[in-house]
């Protein structure tokens, strides 16, 4: 059951091991595209606008090489995460001034539907605060390894 929900939220189609973009906006577009192609959102333009609005309120580049841009909007069909890594680093106005290497683009629907999905996103956010989890994500060789890291979200830390 839990792994089914996990599969809804993140799966290999929503992962990019090596992002092409080098700036915040490029990467937001790149990952938004993944969401769109996988039927998570109904409009790229509206979603990107929402994400940028949130980003401009206060950066989601929380430091430690991580950014978690997110958009909550009626254009989200079902909640999900797109994940991308960049070894080069992405220029982002981050809290610690360092470039971003891992981006989680969260899409959440306006209606608040899919409470379990939101719970999962919350658990993921918590997990990201742990050193070993972040290192593991960066070191993972392929999508299978990454997905098994994500599965560990369910194990109590």
């Amino acid at each position: 059951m839990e792994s089914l929900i996990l599969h809804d939220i993140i799966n290999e189609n929503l992962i990019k091991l090596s992002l092409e973009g080098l700036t915040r906006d490029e990467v937001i577009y790149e990952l938004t595209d993944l969401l769109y192609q996988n039927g998570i959102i109904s409009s790229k333009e509206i979603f990107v606008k929402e994400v940028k609005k949130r980003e401009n309120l206060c950066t989601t580049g929380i430091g430690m090489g991580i950014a978690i841009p997110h958009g909550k909007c009626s254009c989200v069909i079902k909640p999900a995460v797109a994940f991308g890594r960049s070894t080069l680093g992405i220029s982002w106005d981050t809290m610690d001034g360092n470039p971003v290497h891992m981006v989680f683009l969260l899409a959440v629907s306006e209606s608040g539907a899919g409470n379990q999905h939101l719970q999962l996103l919350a658990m993921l956010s918590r997990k990201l605060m742990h050193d070993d989890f972040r290192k593991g994500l960066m070191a993972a060789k392929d999508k299978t390894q990454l997905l098994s890291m994500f599965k560990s979200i369910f194990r109590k830390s």
Partner: protein
Amino acid sequence: MPIKIVGVTNCPAGIAHTYMAAEALETEAKKRGYQIKIETQGSIGVENRLSPKDIEEADYVILALGRGLSDDERARFADKRVLYVDISEVLKNPAEIIENLEKRAVKFENINATHQNQVTTGNTKRSVGVFGHLMNGVSFMIPFVTAGGILLAISTALVGGGKTSPGSFAFLLENVGVIGFQLMIPILAGYVAFSIADKPALAPAMIGAWLANQRDVLGTKGGAGFLGAIAVGLLVGYFVQQLKSLKFPKTMQALMSFLIIPAVTTLLISILVFYILGPIISGIMFSINSFLNSLSTVSKIIVCIVIGMMIVFDMGGPINKAAYLFSLGMVEQGNALFFGTVAITNVIPPVALGLATLLRPDLFKPDEIANGKSAVVVGLFGITEPAIPYAVNDPLAVIGAQMIAASAAAIVGVLFGVTRIAPGAGILDPIIGIAKPALGYYTALAIGILINVALVILFKSIRKKKNSGLFVNS
């Protein structure tokens, strides 16, 4: 006894920061052997809610907030030693927060005053700006125009362009269509004002805009149309917003929003419209309209080229919206030529870019190619958004090509006299009867798309040649 800490975290979206901050504080506190309980106020709702007993027993309270806390909620922590921080500070350095808790936490009543402003600044989610308010009005208005326009088109088709005879079905459709068009004015004004100042502003703005469009009442040559609606909507909206911020005695407050504000504002806006605004704006509208109607074909072409270029320039951005709104407003004034240009040029970019990816995949990125087919299909039905990623990746070549193509299509459109009376659905417009003539519409569209495809491929090949030998993907 270990030190006991309680806290609350929240953030604007309530999706990620709330939980990250909670986790960071918990981890740091546990490292030091403290007891900690953090209430998370996220989009799932409030979790791990602090009980009065938790708060009672706590030595310190940490409020890590991204969207403020209501007075009621803050009252829970009366007399406690509280540390107020911005949630981003917690994410930056959670260890520092826990370590300096003793130094930084202050008794609750002291912080009440100093943090008042901080709490209100957290509530700026409605700062959308004039443009946002206008777009809110437009989004409510469009269904009226679409519904009215389609019925009107059916009615015209039924009588073959002639006059409808009273009592007939075509007569019914015609009148319903006209009602839709008449309502678009008050709806636009009403929802611009509603977006600024909520419910109390709706009625005065709708009534004011309706009045501004009644040339018989005003004694003017024409109505104030969409310009009048925008003016009334903005004026009423900001006026009501000011009124609402005034302090009134409690007994009156209950009556304010549904009685006093609407009545007083309606009276004031009506006087303003009747004596000043109405005559001025309807004068402006009348002269714009007669000027546009008197234009020679050449001048009409120039106006339409400008509109066409604006439509494709930022695809859904402010420039596009300005051209769209102007053209739609002119329809209400009885001049549908400009909206005809919009109908044609809207379709060109996504279809042309999609076709270009099919013809020359070597010039596009993998994502762009993957999107190509859907861009063509979706684009044909009048949705321009699929073109945006292409423009973002390569603005000069993509936007340059489509602006030239849109100009050409606009010229052909004017020569054929292509008009559209309501927002529609791309290539379906001539079929449902809102865009005419069909031949002109499709010819202009085909020419525009052809030119756009050719130019995009040309520009991108030139670029590619220049860059060959260099590192391309930068």
